[in-house]
């Protein structure tokens, strides 16, 4: 049998998530949270309720993703006529007008990245719950991807912000934000929180040969 790798948890140590100081896991008095003696951040061996929280946020983001794509994100009002645009219709507009690179940027940032992130997190959650032994290093990499790409989905929200600020020509042309923008901003923020609440150390906990959790203080 492989010797168990020495993790902070198996040595009854807790690594402070903020300043990385290792602290002895001592049982805190009831009702009192253990805090890092150096920086004062709350100590926990693993992110609290990581799986349940991440699931809740992922499901919420999946639900928000639908209105974010179906409802209009911008409304162009020109000579009293309103034209509503969704995210996809914006992409199609750029493809038709020949601005391929811009169409690609919007498609990747607004459609592909949020979905990729949600599916990756779902996969990671299921694999952790099944105590999967499959390629932990690569799964940790996938987690890093979900953390790094999330912010780029804000692009479309910023495009709307700038369009709304610039195009105010009264009856000639005005651009307004549509309800889709609220849901889309929701998707981006919720998925960022979801990635933050997932604890990649859970991937590695399943790799310990005798997978009995040490007594938690």
């Amino acid at each position: 049998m492989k010797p168990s790798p020495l993790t902070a948890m198996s040595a009854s140590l807790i690594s402070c998530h903020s300043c990385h100081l290792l602290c002895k896991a001592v049982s805190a008095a009831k009702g009192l949270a253990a805090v890092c003696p150096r920086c004062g951040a709350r100590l926990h061996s693993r992110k609290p309720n990581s799986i349940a929280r991440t699931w809740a946020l992922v499901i919420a983001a999946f639900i928000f993703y639908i209105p974010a794509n179906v409802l209009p994100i911008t409304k162009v009002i020109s000579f009293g006529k309103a034209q509503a645009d969704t995210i996809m219709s914006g992409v199609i507009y750029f493809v038709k007008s020949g601005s391929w690179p811009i169409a690609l940027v919007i498609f990747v940032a607004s459609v592909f990245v949020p979905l990729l992130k949600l599916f990756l997190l779902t996969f990671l959650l299921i694999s952790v719950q099944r105590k999967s032994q499959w390629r932990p290093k690569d799964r940790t990499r996938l987690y890093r991807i979900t953390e790094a790409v999330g912010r780029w989905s804000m692009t479309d929200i910023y495009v709307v912000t700038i369009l709304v600020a610039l195009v105010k020509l009264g009856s000639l042309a005005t651009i307004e934000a549509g309800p889709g923008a609220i849901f889309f901003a929701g998707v981006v923020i919720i998925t960022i929180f979801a990635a933050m609440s997932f604890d990649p150390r859970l991937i590695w906990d399943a790799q310990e040969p005798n997978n009995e959790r040490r007594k938690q203080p």
Partner: protein
Amino acid sequence: MANNLDVLVQSIISACCPVIKKNTGFVRMKDLKFLIACHECDLLHLRRPLPPDGTARCIRCGAVLYKRKRNSLNRVLALTVTGLVLFIIANAYPFLTFRLEAQVQETNLITGVIELYRQGMWIVAGVVLLTTIVMPLLELSGMLFVLVPLKMRRQPWKLALLFRSVRSFRPWGMMEVFMIGILVAAVKLVKMAQIIPGMALYAFMILIFILAASAAALDPHIIWKTLD
């Protein structure tokens, strides 16, 4: 349980670093400072001195454990001061100007936020305000409050809380993403009207690089160590 911990930690300390081997007995706080757990897989490592600009990675999952930066605090302080000046310019001067024949629409960085708020999109307005103005400002000014006293050899006010907050603000500043947004919006409007970049836009672009450089120059461990 305490005994178990001592044996485990002692064994890796003695395996990794013979110098501390003599130091038998209980594991003390002092000994724990030599160790670091990987924040992504929890594996324990011995902290070792790195060459300048070196990076220590986890041997199991490859996460970056710690880095050593040359002259970290001075560089970060210089970049933070520069960043604050650019931040003021980026907010005070015209950002983009939209011109269609005789109609001229001049905007600032905050105009879009105000306009979204007026249209009842206060959630979206709030998100944009936080990610492009409030968080970068808090991060820059927080760093200043941390670094200036340290440079004057004084204990900064509430250093632990302040630096912890500064670190948590970082992922929420999204100025570089805003830049992509500007690019897309400009391409969208360029056929319809003339888009004139203002002084603030240039300051904003430089600020993005300054923030990235400051993030790369910062060695947070130096600041945490002052609390020991």
